């Protein structure tokens, strides 16, 4: 009556098997990129309707040529100066009376934009420019708007636009009816109204 204990399974190779699986998953893993610069295309225009008239001084023209050089308002410019120039233009507030801008802190030069709502940043690029450069220029222009929005938000609500927006985006679905959320949404709209992102990527055309 020798009742033997069941022989123990050798688990020594368990680690090897697990390592094999681990390496498989390590290799196949691609961390998905889930961030990007959000933009909105203008709806298609039919050719009969002329574009609305815009005063030349309200347009901030940025040209990128095929050698990745930057021409801003008809002057060569280094990329690092672009954001400051854009901020100065948008925040100029040179308009008078009704088209003035009480909250602007710019130079109020009559040759630059009337107010941020009218100011349009126009980006025209050559087809041969690289995407690298293009996205960097776009990024810098968007940054100009973010700087101004942050400033306005800090003055009004004591919190930057970016952090307000991050809170807005992080809200769970269940909390979307709370008064805080609706208040936050309203505040964001106010700031966006003050500095709307008028970034025109222009109809394709031959840039010089």
């Amino acid at each position, binding site marked *: 009556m020798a009742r033997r204990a069941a022989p123990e399974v050798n688990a020594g190779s368990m*680690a090897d098997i697990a390592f094999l699986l*681990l390496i498989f998953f390590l290799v196949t893993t691609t961390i998905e990129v889930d961030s990007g610069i*959000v933009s909105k295309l203008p709806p298609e225009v039919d050719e009969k309707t002329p574009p609305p008239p815009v005063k030349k001084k309200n347009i901030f023209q940025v040209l990128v040529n095929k050698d990745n050089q930057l021409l801003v308002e008809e002057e060569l410019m280094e990329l690092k100066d672009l954001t400051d120039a854009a901020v100065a233009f948008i925040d100029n507030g040179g308009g008078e009376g009704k088209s003035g801008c009480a909250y602007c802190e710019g130079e109020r030069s009559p040759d630059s934009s009337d107010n941020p709502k009218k100011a349009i940043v126009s980006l025209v690029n050559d087809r041969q420019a*690289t*995407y690298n450069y293009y996205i960097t220029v776009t990024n810098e222009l968007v940054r100009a708007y973010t700087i101004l929005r942050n400033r306005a938000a800090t003055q009004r609500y004591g919190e930057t636009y970016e952090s307000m927006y991050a809170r807005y*985006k992080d809200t769970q679905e269940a909390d979307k009816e709370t008064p805080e959320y609706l208040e936050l949404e309203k505040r964001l709209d106010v700031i966006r109204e003050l500095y709307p992102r008028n970034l025109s990527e222009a109809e394709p055309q031959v840039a010089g």
Partner: protein
Amino acid sequence: MSKFNKKKSGDLPPVSTASLPDIVFMLLFFFMVATVMRDDEMLVENQLPAANQVEKLEDKNKLVNIYIGKPGVNYQKTFGTSDVVQLGDKISRVDDVYNYVNTKRSAMPENLQDQMMVSLKVDRNAKVGVLTDVKQELRKAQALKITYTSNQGDPMNNIKRR
């Protein structure tokens, strides 16, 4: 005497590796959970640029991906070396963007259709020309919400790296 000798073995006891499988399994589970399998096989080069004004994108089911870049090494014989557009898992012509986007949109649940966002994944060394054409097509297709998908990072690195 032998009674005392036994204790005298001066060797270090071997480190127990019994918990090694546990550790490895823990790592394994982590990677299994974190892994996202790519939906589309990449036929074009696709190194995304860096930017710092990025926003988190919408849910995956609202996104439509369009890849732009040079064909990968294996496909250069067939498609040449200039920039091309990849829709789904094949290289297509720019004119096909219109149909592709519309097909994708009608495949979505109806309440999400107007929230559709086109994620443009453009290789950092691509030329802007093809992108401009694609954008014109998107305007025709009324797919106006777009995003230039890019990694979080300092955009100035884009230009330094040649």
